[in-house]
């Protein structure tokens, strides 16, 4: 990952801007890293990409006129991640977002609890989802973003956030419950 080298040094950031940046943007470094980690599924690449995103944020900071700093930063992180994926792993972005899912019978809370009561299985199930499903779940469940923030970060219309989440959750449930039986037998 050489991207973090280009344009190094946001020399346009003056001292008072830096103080504002530290106050408003830097506290969301965890959020930035977490989103990158789940989009790229790999800590080392995420560290590079998150660093690059922070540099970009520095460079664009003049254009930030208050408001939701976390959503503003996460939007940059997401774009940086997608640019990186396009360049390094284009295949991952080709999965269909609008793929129609058959309406599946509801999974019972108990069955789901058994399937998901395992950190690694949950990680793998999340990672098998297409990035566009994964990101809405990460933003909603890990970051606690509102629909409005999710729309701003992912550039999907606010009216479709709800259905995107509905489909993402359904995908996650089926990934969890389908992987469960083999996992269980392997663990025995």
């Amino acid at each position, binding site marked *: 990952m050489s991207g973090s080298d280009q344009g190094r040094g946001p020399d346009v950031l003056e001292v008072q801007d830096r103080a504002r940046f530290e106050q408003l943007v830097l506290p969301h470094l965890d959020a930035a890293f977490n989103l990158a980690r789940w989009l790229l599924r790999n800590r080392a690449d995420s560290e590079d990409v998150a660093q690059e995103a922070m540099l970009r944020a520095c460079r664009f900071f003049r254009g930030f006129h208050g408001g939701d700093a976390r959503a503003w930063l996460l939007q940059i992180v997401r774009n940086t991640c997608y640019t990186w994926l396009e360049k390094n792993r284009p295949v991952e972005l080709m999965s269909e977002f609008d793929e129609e899912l058959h309406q599946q019978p509801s999974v019972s809370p108990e069955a789901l*609890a058994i399937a998901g009561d395992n950190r690694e299985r949950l990680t793998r199930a999340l990672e098998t989802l297409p990035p566009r499903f994964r990101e809405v779940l990460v933003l909603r469940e890990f970051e606690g973003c509102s629909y409005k923030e999710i729309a701003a970060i992912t550039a999907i219309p606010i009216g479709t956030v709800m259905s995107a989440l509905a489909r993402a959750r359904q995908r996650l449930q089926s990934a969890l419950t389908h992987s469960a039986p083999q996992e269980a037998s392997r663990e025995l």
Partner: protein
Amino acid sequence: MSCDSTRTVLHGYLDGELDATRAAEFERHLENCRECAVALGTEESLRSMLQRSGLYETAPVSLRKKVRADLGAAASSVALRIPAWRWLALAAALLVVASVSWYAWPRVQNSASSAPFTAAELVDAHVRSLQPGHLTDVASTDQHTVKPWFNGKLAFVPPVKDFTDEGFVLIGGRLDVLGGQNVAALVYARRKHVINVFVLPTKEPDTPIHPPGLRQGYQWRHWRRQGMEYCAISDVADSDLYELAQLLYQ
């Protein structure tokens, strides 16, 4: 309301994104639709599974350092070129930023530097824990049960001690999220009151037990000791809270 549309509306309801009219409409529907009731239960358990999974990955120290270095390098090269009058403007600007952010974002009070969570987040976490079924993930009065329970669930091991003899009964522990970080919550009972002690790792130096903070009728005591940040919060009298803080501090 057809069940197809409900499948989507259900998520808006779950996420608290419906307006009052639509939420009430959905609740009426929920009374008569078994399928939706089951689906809602499933979604709720999926949510708590995700939120309690500890899968949130915080930024590694190396990244934090690199970003700081990037910022520092940028600012120091600029600082040298700033004429004296700009420094005054800067000081004024910083004062404004500091005072504005103090009102907008009141951190848990602390003499050295602020805690990595806000007073509002702290009180929210405490109130949330008091809702039915939320208080403990592991319910036990035995510190040797509670402590190992945290193993593998957090990137640090919180110190777990029972003070039954001193009147603070350890009733269990749980994972919680505070200021966007995974934290350990130790739960103590003082007479009929619940005290949550949030514990998370810190790189800041030790501090004494800070004066009490107060918000919405809840009081807290905050301190740092041996690489851990502690915040004890409850509706008990501050003297009780301080007593527990001192026991934990030892």
